[in-house]
């Protein structure tokens, strides 16, 4: 899993590439989220466009990012969620937790709306 970070209108966009499946990925992610908070930023969009698949351990990594941001007074939202990842969100009802977007500008704007 590779993570690249960029910013748009004060929102951090994390572009992921590969498979999100736990193991070493969890540590990398944890560090990324703590860095983001330390820099005083708390609005994160995770772009899953480059993610082939994810397992429930990978979903745990996203949840960890979500709770970290929420506790910091921010939020984590998902962009470009494939059918396959969508199925996992639905069956676990985590779709009630994660706001999902198909369009980057809309994902970013959703933070500015409120």
């Amino acid at each position, binding site marked *: 899993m590779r993570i690249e970070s960029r910013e748009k209108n004060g929102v951090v966009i994390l572009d992921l590439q590969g*498979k999100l*499946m*736990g*193991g070493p990925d969890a540590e990398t992610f944890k560090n990324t989220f703590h860095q983001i908070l330390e820099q005083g930023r708390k609005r994160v969009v995770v772009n899953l466009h480059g993610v*082939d*698949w994810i*397992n*429930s*351990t990978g*979903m*745990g*990594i996203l*949840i*960890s990012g*979500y*709770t970290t941001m929420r506790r910091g007074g921010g939020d984590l939202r998902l962009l470009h969620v494939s*059918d*396959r990842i969508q*199925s*996992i969100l639905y*069956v*676990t*009802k*985590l779709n*009630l*937790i994660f706001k999902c977007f198909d369009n980057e500008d809309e994902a970013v704007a959703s933070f500015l709306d409120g």
Partner: protein
Amino acid sequence: MAGTVVLEFPSDYKFLNTVDLVCNEVIQNLCIKHEIANEIAISVIEAVTNAIEHGNHECCDQNVRVLFQCKDDRFCVEVEDCGKGFDYQCFLQNIPDPTNVGHLRGRGIFIMKNMMDSLDFEMVPGHGMKVKLEKKLKPKADGDVQKD
């Protein structure tokens, strides 16, 4: 065994992708709905993740064995590890709430149980734990778009 596809590999997460590729190749021949194919692939990855992590403790000297087979109108997958198993009856009676974001883990069995038509566990004496997954195959409906 004839008519089956079997993949065996060391207990390293890097082989999860190999499992996924093989699973998708096997499923592709079944002419089923994209949604059902997804549910099978997701569940297989969960079962194999557990075999690598909890069954074989990521020990590369121990293999995981995955068997794919069509039986009449059912697609059957078996995932075998070399571990001691666990008290699955107990776990199945108290599957944790997957929406509880206080827990980062503990959703694999919930996902398999809800995405497959049948989920069974079995201890193979002298070997390890075997997880058996089954999905009923409804032929692909007209107008369903095949993704490939």
